[in-house]
């Protein structure tokens, strides 16, 4: 009797391994894939066809060329032709971008590492307090953080007032000072550096450090030979997370300097896109930026996805 019941119930239950109809998961993913295809991949192709397109001779508006066989590389010839030499007006911003981004990322690392290290290893019972304080900047919008420094750094601002006590003449911090821009970038992006560093340092097993000490390593050599090597992936992640967005940053520069003497690649893009007739040039710069960042972005995505697999 029970057997017959079971036999009748059996066909209802799909066999193991084919629990799901084949279309089920693709159907779940379809809306997201369509969205990304339509609003991420397609736009990149539009940028390509504008950058390699032609210009309307009268209105100077860009005419996209959709067929790759007819693409016209003159925009890129124009850009690369003006990188160096007498008319090399694109060269300095490019170099500056690299110099500022590298400097700001390294300063962020040098400042952020001890902070993350302290909170991960020594904060003890006050860890929650420190974490809240480290997370606080994420609640403050980037623009507000820059506005705060604009207020402080104005010629009659608090920084110059304080320096005045020591007899320093007021400095025009906000008109084309590279140091202001670099420190502004550090200030803006350093929270994104500290978080992955903290996560990485927190994961290091305490017993490894104790073993190093037991084996006679001093505090410094424990750090140099155990902690530092083990936090290398976190350092790399932190550097990528802060430096890649910095390459496209134009607003920090606009707010803290506003001078062509400190303009970066992001500023070139922003200016070109908002100037009538230079849209194609802007598209070419966007492509250049994208091409430049593809290797580090791919590296970041690969290492992150591999790590999440390992953790699971």
């Amino acid at each position, binding site marked *: 009797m029970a057997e017959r019941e079971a036999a009748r119930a059996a066909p209802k239950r799909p066999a193991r391994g084919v629990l799901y109809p084949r279309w089920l998961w693709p159907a*779940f993913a379809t809306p*997201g894939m369509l969205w990304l295809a339509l609003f991420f991949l397609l736009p*990149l192709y539009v940028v390509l066809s504008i950058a390699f397109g032609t210009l309307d001779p009268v209105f100077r508006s860009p005419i996209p060329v959709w067929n790759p066989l007819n693409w016209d590389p003159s925009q890129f010839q124009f850009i690369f032709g003006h990188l160096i030499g007498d008319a090399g007006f694109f060269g300095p911003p490019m170099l500056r971008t690299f110099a500022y981004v590298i400097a700001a990322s390294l300063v962020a690392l040098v400042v952020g590492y001890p902070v993350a290290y302290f909170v991960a290893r020594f904060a003890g019972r006050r860890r929650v307090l420190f974490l809240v304080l480290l997370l606080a900047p994420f609640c403050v919008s980037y623009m507000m953080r820059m506005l705060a420094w604009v207020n402080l750094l104005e010629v009659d601002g608090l920084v110059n007032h304080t320096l005045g006590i020591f007899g320093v003449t007021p400095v025009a911090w906000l008109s084309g000072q590279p140091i202001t821009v670099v420190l502004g970038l550090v200030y803006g992006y350093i929270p994104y550096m500290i*978080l992955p560093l903290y996560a990485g340092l927190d994961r290091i097993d305490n017993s490894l450090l104790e073993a190093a000490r037991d084996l006679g390593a001093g505090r410094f050599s424990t750090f140099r030979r155990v902690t530092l090597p083990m936090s290398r992936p976190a350092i790399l992640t932190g550097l990528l997370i802060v430096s890649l*967005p910095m390459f*496209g940053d134009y607003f920090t520069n606009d*707010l803290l300097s506003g001078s062509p003497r400190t303009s970066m690649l992001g500023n070139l893009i922003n200016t070109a896109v908002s100037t009538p007739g230079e849209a194609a040039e802007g598209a070419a710069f966007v492509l250049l930026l994208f091409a430049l960042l593809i290797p580090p972005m791919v590296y970041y995505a690969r290492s992150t996805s591999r790590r999440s697999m390992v953790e699971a």
Partner: protein
Amino acid sequence: MSEVSLERGRLPVAPSSERRSPLYRFLPSRSNPWRRPVMLETITWLYLLWSILPVGLAVLFSFNAGRSRTAWQGFSLRWYFIDPAGSVWNDPTLRDALFQTLKLAVITTVIAVPIGVIFAIGVDRWRGRLPAVFNFQMLVSFVIPEIIVGVALLFVFTQLTTFIPLGTPAQVIGLVTFQLSFPVVIVRARLLSIGSQYEEAAMDLGASPVQAVRRVLLPMLWPAIFASAVLVFADVIDDFVIVRALSAELSSETMSVKIYNGARSTATPALNALATIMLVISIVAVVLGFFVYRRMTRDDNLGGGAALDQFAAQL
């Protein structure tokens, strides 16, 4: 880190300091492995001061009674709603910016989170090359400069089609595209730790695949979904590049765009007041989000610190 404090109690580490100079406690002592790292702690506090003080001052000056953003002239709520022309509430451009920001944040969250959640489930369970590519792209969008997405979409909406106007519709599309990775990555992390055994058990008990997802998997995902919604909302409020690139007339500019436009020119504390309102909205969203998140995960036996750790790990 609790091990450290435990060990400190257990080990007879500190040699008696009576014979040493009073400076002993400030000098490094090689014999005490658990001594307080004074240097590190100093650096940490200096960093925190540096990171929080300027913003604190900006908030303070939003309550300035005078027009200056650098000289204190007494406390007042003038720049919030008292001043008949220049305050956030009475200046139509600033007030519009406030509402536009909230509008974009709500619409984007409502669209991005559901798409992202089902996308995450689909990509996680569907083996193959295509989902791998999209998963890869999700991670890339964490580090891609926003200006690339913003300018590319600007070209789409001005050169390719014109039926989607710049302004709110274009801004929402841009924001959803950029924010989609939050729900996807957070929900996927949760899916990886859940595994597939619960759904399989549900289906062994007679649930259809869709029922298993809806009635077993989804309830387990709620905390992750909720956390990602909070993050998307708070992040959209702070967004600048995409919102500015895809804005049309003045009324579609958000608070962050107003701050960008005004920071170096029209200098009244109304701008600080606007920034402070943004700050309060973000803090309320995140703090409320954290407590609801902790309530949702209270069965996971997380202490306050561990819950905060986990919440932070999802940022």
